[in-house]
């Protein structure tokens, strides 16, 4: 593996570790944002999905 690729993979792994260490409520907020981004694509493919509607407003 060349050094550039190795650096990129290790940065990716470090980012994942940082995300994994986030508090659970923050991760759920990120999940809801992810759902909102992906739902239109999933619906276009015929899946009936929608982003969770969670309170408070910060989840939307």
């Amino acid at each position, binding site marked *: 593996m060349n050094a550039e690729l190795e650096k990129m993979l290790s940065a990716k*792994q470090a980012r*994942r*570790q940082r*995300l*994994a260490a986030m508090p*659970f*409520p923050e*991760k*759920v907020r*990120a*999940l809801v944002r*992810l*759902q909102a981004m*992906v*739902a239109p694509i999933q619906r276009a493919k015929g899946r009936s*999905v*929608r982003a*969770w*509607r*969670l*309170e408070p407003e910060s989840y939307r």
Partner: protein
Amino acid sequence: MERVGVIRRYAIGGAVGAIYYMEPILTYDLDIFVQLPASSQGLVTLTAVYEYLRSRGYAEERDCINIEGVPVQFLPAFNPLIEEALAEARDTTFEQTPTRVLRAEHLVAIMLQTARAKDRERLASFVAEAVLDEDYLAAVLARYDLTATWQQWRGQR
């Protein structure tokens, strides 16, 4: 539901349970493992859970119940591994609300036991990111005859 006796104990599992330990991954359902009281006929069914939630105005959506905008799938503890996972689930809070999440080591064992393509895929990221108690994991895997499956899975990576 625990307080009123509809269920004995619950804990978050599935993808949201995994997210507790790893980076957020996409899911649209919330899987809740539940220990149910046995019915008078000795059967374990989710009927009482569904009736209780219906009476509170929550509607069924395919194999889930929509609770405050979240499709929740209730999964009864259908084998000894899941019963143990529920018994040893860790207490936590979500914002100010107390809740419970399966231990990371039990999630690994359940993914190995279930072994759907998505479980195997998720397991790779999970093992790379979650902090696992190796001794505890080894004991769980040995108890449920999953050590060889685990070694085989690791060998393929």
